[in-house]
């Protein structure tokens, strides 16, 4: 059987995203940042609108907007009178609403809103695949360089700082990595489902793993299985690809619950 090019591209793009969504998702789970991830992902649509309006690379615009929002969030958090989840809720939905309004204002552009919200894996071009691979490789290298420091910071920030970790730098790096992953994951599963692709495979691999590295690797593996499974479902039953991938991940998570915890 000859695999059609669009399907091959979709598989490659999906695997490129899965390779980083797993490890980063593990940190999101360990550090309880799921809602922050969601907020940044929601703001990606605003990045799309900005990218289109300014006629610059959409990926770049998404990274810039996500990083900007992360900084804004940290500033808000510093003079805190509201709970963190309230702040994140405000930011997530305000930026999503702003993104939706901004995209609608670009009415001369025929923007396929649906593809940004839910992903368009079956429409990725060879160029998209190359971009995803480049970003994914960059993220993996960054994760590799900062791995021990990220772990130390996750375990206890002040302890890590006393032991010589530049916590501010490492935290900034984590935000940057997150923004990069969101930019490429948007292609695969869309703005609304990015966090799912990060945290569900990571959560599913918890019971299989005995070390942080194992958990990250299993998460990448499970995310890859979800991508291939989701694409197969989408191909044969003509369901939307992004949501199908996420549903496959959810099924894997349910399966993982069957394994007894040691």
């Amino acid at each position, binding site marked *: 059987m000859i695999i059609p090019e669009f399907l091959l591209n979709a598989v490659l793009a999906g695997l490129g995203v899965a390779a980083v969504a797993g490890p980063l998702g593990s940190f999101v*789970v*360990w*550090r*309880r940042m799921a809602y922050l991830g969601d907020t940044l992902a929601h703001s990606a649509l605003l990045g799309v609108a900005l990218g289109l309006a300014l006629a610059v690379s959409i990926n770049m615009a998404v990274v810039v907007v996500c990083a900007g929002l992360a900084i804004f969030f940290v500033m808000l958090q510093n003079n805190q009178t509201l709970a963190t989840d309230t702040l994140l809720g405000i930011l997530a939905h305000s930026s999503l609403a702003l993104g939706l309004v901004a995209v609608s204002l670009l009415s001369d552009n025929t923007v396929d809103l649906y593809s940004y919200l839910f992903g368009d894996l079956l429409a990725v071009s060879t160029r998209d695949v190359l971009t995803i691979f480049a970003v994914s490789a960059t993220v993996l290298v960054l994760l590799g360089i900062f791995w*021990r*420091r990220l*772990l*130390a910071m*996750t*375990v*206890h920030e*002040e*302890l*890590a*700082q*006393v*032991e*010589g*970790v530049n916590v501010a730098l490492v935290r900034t790096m984590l935000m940057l990595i997150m923004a990069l992953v969101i930019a490429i994951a948007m292609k695969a599963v869309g703005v609304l489902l990015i966090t799912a692709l990060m945290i569900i495979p*990571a*959560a599913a691999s*918890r019971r299989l*793993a*005995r*070390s*942080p590295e*194992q*958990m990250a690797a299993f998460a990448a593996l499970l995310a890859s299985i979800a991508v291939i499974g989701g694409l197969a479902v989408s191909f044969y039953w003509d369901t939307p690809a992004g949501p199908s991938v996420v549903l496959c991940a959810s099924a894997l998570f349910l399966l993982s619950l069957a394994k007894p915890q040691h």
Partner: protein
Amino acid sequence: MTQLLVSAEHIYLRRSGRDLLADASLSVAANEVVTLIGPNGAGKSTLIRVILGLIKPDRGKVRRSERLRIGYMPQRIAIDPSLPLTVERFLSLLGKDKGRLQHCLELTGTARLRQQAVQSLSGGELQRVLLARALYRDPQLLVLDEPVQGVDVSGQAALYRLIQQIKGETGCGVLMVSHDLHLVMASTDRVVCLNQHVCCEGSPESVSSNPAYLQLFGEQTPDVAIYTHQHDHSHDHGDSTDCQR
């Protein structure tokens, strides 16, 4: 003259309209155990964090000896259960010295826990593992924030004895926070009583009878120390009192 490891001089720190520290000074030398005591909200942990360089004071200076290796045992640690982390891995997060790891585990009596998940430890086990982590980098200064928290009374005495033993073996300086003078009396060389500023300091015996101390803590039943040890060294620092503010 013993080597001064760290000193904080005239530290002032104000947050949300409240003085957390007002003219607090503290120093620790090598081979000395200094215990910081004070009521809740006295600024003990804050002063520790200033000394560790985690908070910048509004005013005042922190001096450290050059290339000072600090081992820090935080007051509490909450590791998410989703992180698969054994005791062994927790200790060697930032290093990979197998011999050192084994030594620290044995010294703190936690060798049998090495493959256990950190999140599954009991209060007393966790404190010992945290101490082992603090020791891993062979520190010149040990900073322990309420090291006996969540430990039963007999375990507390054992833990203090262990700290004393570590000081004896390595010659490191120890700075620890405690809320109970009588428990630490036997294992500390010098006590600093803090309530935003230093109320009184000196040998444990002198502090326990100091009017400033008694005023802060009330008249307690004296001396419920679990054990006393023989001092094999002299205390040559002068006892001082400063509570006329």
